């Protein structure tokens, strides 16, 4: 494999994705192409309904496109079966969701342990690693509390800890700041940037929150189901429609 191939973390080419019946078809992605590199934090931005979340789902292997090729760390996802895709996600992906998706009946530490337990790690080992990463996100002392007892920002920090606890090479963040105020959102993005920064890791953030664009290395703008342009400087983007 060439050095270039190693630097590419995610590559999607000619991806078509539509929903509904043939008579009532909604096109979400139309010949979409996308590339993300190792060591970078790339944002996918665009107006509502432009296909950001669908593209993110395709990259995450939770949706299989009708056409096109998706490659993550050299592994073609479009040909994989459900079991292989599940195993791929288990090993390689960390998720930060818009609505946190922390299980309210579990403790903070137990929530963070979930990816490790899914991987089949022993409970005690998972617990120790969860405590360590919760310390990193500044939640030491809150490990045995319930997520609902935390503020929105703290809950998102728990979600970040959960996304990174198993050290995945690809971190997928879906609108991570949409439920947070400006300052908290900025803190969270700073934390994502600080904790996930690694030459081997790629972070893909879907957002329409232009206040956090400054945390991106590159920004890919989407329009009508495809990437319309990729910029290095957020100032180059017209954010009025976001």
């Amino acid at each position, binding site marked *: 494999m060439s050095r270039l191939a190693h630097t590419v973390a995610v590559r999607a080419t000619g991806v078509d994705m539509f929903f509904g019946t043939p008579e009532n078809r909604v096109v979400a992605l139309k010949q979409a192409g996308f590339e993300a590199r190792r060591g970078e934090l790339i944002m996918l931005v665009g107006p509502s309904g432009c296909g950001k979340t669908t593209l993110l789902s395709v990259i995450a292997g*939770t*949706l299989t496109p009708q056409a096109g090729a998706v490659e993550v760390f050299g592994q073609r996802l479009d040909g994989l079966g459900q079991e292989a895709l599940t195993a791929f996600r288990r090993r390689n992906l960390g998720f930060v969701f*818009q609505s946190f998706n922390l299980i309210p009946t579990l403790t903070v530490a137990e929530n963070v342990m979930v990816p490790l337990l899914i991987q089949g790690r022993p409970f005690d080992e998972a617990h120790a690693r969860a405590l360590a990463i919760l310390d990193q996100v500044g939640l030491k002392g809150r490990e045995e509390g319930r997520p609902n007892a935390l503020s929105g920002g703290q809950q998102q920090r728990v979600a970040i800890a959960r996304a990174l606890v198993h050290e995945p090479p690809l971190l997928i963040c879906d609108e991570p700041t949409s439920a947070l105020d400006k300052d908290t959102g900025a803190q969270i993005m700073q934390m994502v940037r600080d904790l996930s920064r690694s030459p081997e890791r790629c972070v893909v953030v879907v957002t329409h929150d232009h206040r956090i664009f400054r945390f991106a290395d590159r920004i890919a703008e989407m329009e009508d189901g495809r990437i319309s342009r990729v910029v290095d400087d957020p100032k180059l983007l017209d954010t009025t429609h976001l």
Partner: protein
Amino acid sequence: MYRLALNMLFGDRAKLAMLLCGLAFSALLMAQQSSVFFGIMSWTYTPMVNIRAQVWVSDPMVEQVNDAKPLRDTDLGRVRSVDGVAWAAPLHTSFVQARMQDGNFKLITLVGIDADTFAGAPAVLSQGRIEDLRLPDTVIVDEWGAALMGRMGVGPDGKPRNTPLQVGDTFEINDIQARIVGICRVKRAFTGGPFVYTTYDRAKGYTLGARRTLSFMLVEPQKGVAPAELCDRIERDTGLKAWTSDTVIWSWGERSLARNTFWWFWTNTGIPFSFGTAVLLGLFVGIAISGQTFYSFVLENLRYFAAIKAMGAGMGVIARMLIVQAFTAGLIGFGLGAGMAQAIGRVMIEKGMPPFVMYPQILWATFALVLGISLVSAVIGIIKVSRVDAASVFRG
């Protein structure tokens, strides 16, 4: 993941309480109603338990122990002559009216036993001596009957005395005096009347007008002769019907009079249907409440299950999580329900009403049914979760 699955279950206390209520109520209903059913059915062959003999001989047309068809006294000699018979004793059973001191009548089960051998006599006497039955006009009454008939007793002041009958008290059977010389402890019967024991000859006197009074013959096989084998010989040589007296429901043989009595009541009365309906109701209530509650638990956690799926948990792991949750709730629910059924059973046994027999098999069957309910609940949840798209977690 199973530990987390349990923490998820126990973390939602309101749902868990509802789930356990449904399962416990279901287990209670199934175990308690089944136990009362078997208790009532055990009353149908009570004479087999109270009147102990290895072989019973009856008229060929007899179908069950409460349906005695009188035999000729000479049949006793015929049975005694069968090879393998150690001894044979006459037994009279009939339902007669007893007139109490206050003038009221009470239906009793009159049992006439052989005065020489006392074959068929009650095993336990709490008052008096069995030998005193040889005195004129004497009877032995069972404890429950003594208490029941005592309510109809009259004290020296002429007022109702409301205390159990004692040795020395009297009442009348067909205008003939019956003087109590003993109080015995026997199992109550389906027919509800008190057991009144007397001698076979005196029973003839109490049942005036009856041409034949020999209801059954109690037979003891000679050493080395199996009861079932002796039954064959008696039937072959006399044309009468012979029965074994095994009363253990799970091991009784085809010749058992208790077994035939049980099945006679099973097929000729509405008892199994009534109790079967109650047990089915328990099952359906369990499925409805537990299934619905577990389904709502799954629905409430659906987006978390979707997130777990997105994070890389296969459907097998999630299915096992749901099964662990449902079965844990099932185990606790069964424990609570069976415990309550036992507690209610203790009260019933102390009060003597209604009859209550909780065989271990009932508990095992209830356990299996509760786990079945849990499995149905888990399957409903698994189907729901399996239809959830992992990508749905990205839809806000």
